[in-house]
């Protein structure tokens, strides 16, 4: 039996895993490849290699009119030695920042909520817990309700940021809460207190750093979901710099496949870069090993 499972079972599981990975990764690879193609009419893209799609998506193409039609406003230009101008996609940075703003609010609000719920028994604990998970409603519904409740926030960046934080708060709370619950939270706190640390100092130098992996993963999940949140962005956003999800949708619905492919690939890149940055930042920030 052992021999049989080793001879057949393991290769079968490996093959299944490989097939699943290929099936899932295939479209992504094809998209990235297509973003460097001139056209994509059949199954496979053709006309390699061009950077035109990427230049237009990144707003580096010469024709500003084309960029505008894609929803890109003129970029900030920085004078660099030799007369060349470096184009900085400030709008892109702003869009990334919208989602990061939501994450920031969630860090400030979500971590204490998760702490309170996992550490203390208090009246209404179940309610707080339920309430922090409740915003798992579709973005459309929250978007409409949001506009009704705070019409003055409609179309503003603040509105988007607050909305993202509301929509994605449950993921932060859940990630951090499960981290808190997996460690001897009360014992850690009592150890630090008995060693002479005040409560705020205990929270900041012991509790939060010990929960760092949960906080980092919560932040990454929050950011990625906020950046990809289309429904809420579409309803609340009115003018000015576009949220990433709206930018993506416009590219997909208004342009050629290859250009859409470049936009999607860029989105993948941004997700990857921000995830790595958050991870690095988290590790640095929480590493209190003094040297």
């Amino acid at each position, binding site marked *: 039996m052992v021999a049989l499972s080793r001879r057949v079972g393991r290769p079968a599981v490996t093959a299944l895993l490989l097939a699943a990975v290929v099936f899932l990764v295939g479209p992504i690879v094809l998209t990235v490849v297509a973003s460097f193609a001139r056209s994509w009419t059949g199954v496979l893209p053709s006309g390699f290699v061009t950077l035109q799609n990427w230049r237009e998506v990144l707003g580096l193409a010469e024709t500003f009119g084309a960029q505008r039609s894609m929803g890109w406003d003129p970029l900030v230009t920085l004078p660099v030695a030799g007369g060349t101008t470096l184009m900085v996609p400030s709008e892109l940075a702003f869009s990334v920042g919208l989602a990061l703003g939501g994450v920031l609010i969630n860090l400030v609000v979500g971590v204490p909520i998760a702490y309170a719920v996992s550490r203390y028994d208090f009246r209404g604990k179940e309610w707080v817990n339920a309430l922090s998970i409740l915003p798992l409603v579709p973005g459309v519904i929250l978007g409409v309700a949001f506009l009704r409740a705070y019409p003055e926030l409609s179309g503003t960046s603040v509105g988007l940021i607050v909305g993202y934080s509301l929509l994605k708060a449950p993921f932060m709370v859940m990630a951090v809460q499960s981290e808190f619950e997996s*460690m*001897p939270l009360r*014992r*850690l706190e*009592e*150890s*630090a*207190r*008995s*060693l*002479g*640390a*005040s409560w705020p*100092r205990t929270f900041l130098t*012991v509790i939060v*750093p*010990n929960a*760092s992996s949960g906080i980092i993963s919560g932040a990454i999940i929050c950011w990625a979901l906020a950046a990809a949140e289309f429904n809420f962005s579409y309803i609340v956003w009115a003018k000015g710099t576009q949220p990433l999800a709206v930018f993506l949708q416009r590219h997909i619905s208004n342009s050629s496949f290859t250009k859409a492919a470049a936009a999607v690939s860029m989105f993948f890149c941004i997700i990857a870069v921000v995830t790595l940055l958050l991870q690095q930042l988290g590790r640095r920030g*929480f*590493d*209190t*090993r*003094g040297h």
Partner: protein
Amino acid sequence: MARVTLDSVRKTYGDTTAMDGVSFTVGDGEVLGVLGPSGCGKTTTLRSIAGFETPTSGTIRFDDDEVTHVPPENRNVGLVFQEYALFDNMTVAENVAFGPKMRGVDKTARRERATDLLELLGIGGFEDRDPTTLSGGQQQRVGLARALAIEPSILLLDEPMTGLDAKLKTRLQREVGDLLAELDVTGLYVTHDQEEAMVMCDRVAVVNDGRVEQIGTPREIYEDPANDFVAEFVSLDPPALPFVEW
């Protein structure tokens, strides 16, 4: 180190009474075992001495100073838990140096103290390790070193050996017992394991239902139990089963 006195300490939560007039004195340099079944109030006793619970009535004194309402960070109490509760975001040495750091001891001095203590506890050379890479016994030694680093008035040990395997437990009991005696530590050793209490402690308080049933040397308690509960709980053979009618 100090003498610690509890005087008729009561602690109630709503209708439940966790401590029902507990009085005892832990002499300077003495290790008092607090022995009892789970839910008997021994952990509440420990937490009251540490300052995490405020007694409903009664007083707690360290030497002649009343500390009943002093917050935990100002009590100078060392804590060792069953769960170790090491700070995983710090190295072993930083864990041990945390208390001195909070007390404003400068960097070289506290590093030196940490190195000495780790050496004393038989885990010298582990200073820069991540505590999560250590074995259970090693982690518990780090926990002990961390608590001792503040030169506490009293060292409170809450079932510190419970998670360890039998062989290691026996060795650690002997080592830690010797160490506490050598350092002249005033200690409160909370456990449900009568054998451990007998080995580790100078005197033992048998606690049941929030009350101290008997207090005395292990020999006194074993040879002359004050009542049926004590007799049954400390009898080593058969194992204590307080809820069974014989």
